[in-house]
């Protein structure tokens, strides 16, 4: 069901169709929350909370507003608000995550040395990319996650983030740029290590 059809269905029968909304969007919202928190349990709670809030809001909206509602960005917006509220109430929320990431990066690098450097191995890139995305400063992380992981349009992102489209685009760009830099940095570190390794063996 498309977004507009879903909104129309909600106008006709909110209670009868809300279940479809949850079914249709739960995976995307959960994936989004997972990128925000890095923690499956928090992601699950945020997703649940977002849907509950969405339902309560929908019951108060007049039909005219419901019909105009762009459901997808609206849901992301609610999830983002839920996330921000939680972070605000738990300031040290993100600290343990970074430590974990550093560790997993180290483990991965040991692995990489054994591999040919002709292509970036998919699984390896995915695992480290995960950590690199999590390490991005929030505004770039949000931009990259919404655009390239969630596939939102710039227009939708502007709604979710309450920022002008230009700002959103710039942040996406900058975020991708930072990711590339980080990946290149990793690769250079590897190849230099591989070279010293080789040199040592040649001696």
């Amino acid at each position: 069901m498309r977004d507009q059809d879903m909104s129309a269905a909600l106008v006709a029968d909110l209670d009868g169709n809300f279940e479809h909304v949850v079914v249709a969007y739960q995976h995307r919202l959960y994936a989004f929350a997972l990128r925000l928190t890095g923690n499956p349990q928090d992601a699950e709670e945020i997703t649940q909370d977002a849907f509950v809030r969405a339902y309560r809001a929908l019951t108060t909206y007049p039909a005219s507003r419901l019909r105009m509602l762009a459901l997808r960005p609206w849901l992301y917006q609610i999830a983002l608000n839920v996330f921000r509220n939680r972070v605000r109430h738990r300031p040290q929320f993100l600290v343990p995550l970074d430590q974990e990431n550093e560790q997993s990066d180290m483990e991965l690098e040991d692995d990489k040395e054994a591999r040919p450097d002709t292509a970036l191995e998919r699984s390896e890139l995915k695992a480290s990319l995960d950590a690199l995305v999590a390490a991005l400063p929030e505004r770039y992380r949000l931009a990259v996650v919404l655009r390239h992981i969630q596939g939102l349009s710039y227009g939708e992102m502007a709604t979710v983030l309450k920022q002008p489209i230009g700002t959103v685009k710039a942040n996406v760009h900058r975020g991708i740029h930072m990711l590339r830099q980080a990946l290149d940095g990793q690769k250079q570190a590897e190849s230099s290590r591989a070279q010293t390794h080789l040199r040592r063996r040649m001696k």
Partner: protein
Amino acid sequence: MTMDRSNPRELGRSRALLQQLRSLGDVVAPATILPVVLEQVGLVEFYAVLQTPIGAAFVAYNDHGVSALMRAPSAADFERQFRQRFGRSLRRVAELPAGLRSMLHQPLSRAKRSSPRFDLRRLSEFERAVLLKVLQIPRGEVRPYAWVAREIGSPKAVRAVGSALGRNPIPLLIPCHRVIRNDGNAGEYSFGREAKRIVLAAEGVDVEALEELARSGTRYYGSDTTHIYCFPTCRNARRITARHRVPFGSTKAAAVAGYRPCMVCRPAQAS
């Protein structure tokens, strides 16, 4: 970093990066999300069986209170009918929660419930007003449709009251059976006329005597000691001794005779 866009390797790598980013979104949400959400917003209902004067009935409830009472030949039939009528899913429980159980086991108790635990969110404002008013009619008493209409401030909406009562999602527990026709006839009921008489009889209302009374032209009883008049089933009317009981055919006749309406059953607005 300067990106060399003309370098095909760079380009390939950037496409790979975006692809990999996209694949980070391929996550399956835990299966617990849907049921928890539906339960929290009151879209999942639980139900159990309740014994009533007209046999076993199924009672559905959610976070907001009791939402439906239906009779069905089997649990499966009930679930299907419920889904058809209300569009929500159901889960059976062995027993109703203690709070609800105590309320339901004396469902037809005399006491006015100040905060009835009923989920009436999906009804119109008018329907809700009708049902909340009906909740105030005590066990063992009946009121005419017109009384409900007047009490909720829509004296002309007598028929609308009738159809609102016909759509009562929680019959028995919201005692729409205590509303009868002005001529004393018990009138329609979602479980059938006969069921209505059985339920009223179980509450101590002598329906035949009421009909007989109405046929004889009596709609109200007054007391010649207090000069107050009531509906015949009002608890104040029932304690008037035969010697002091004065029948009236209309509120007008009572007023002309110098009687005022009872403040409990309110057969007419106090002037």
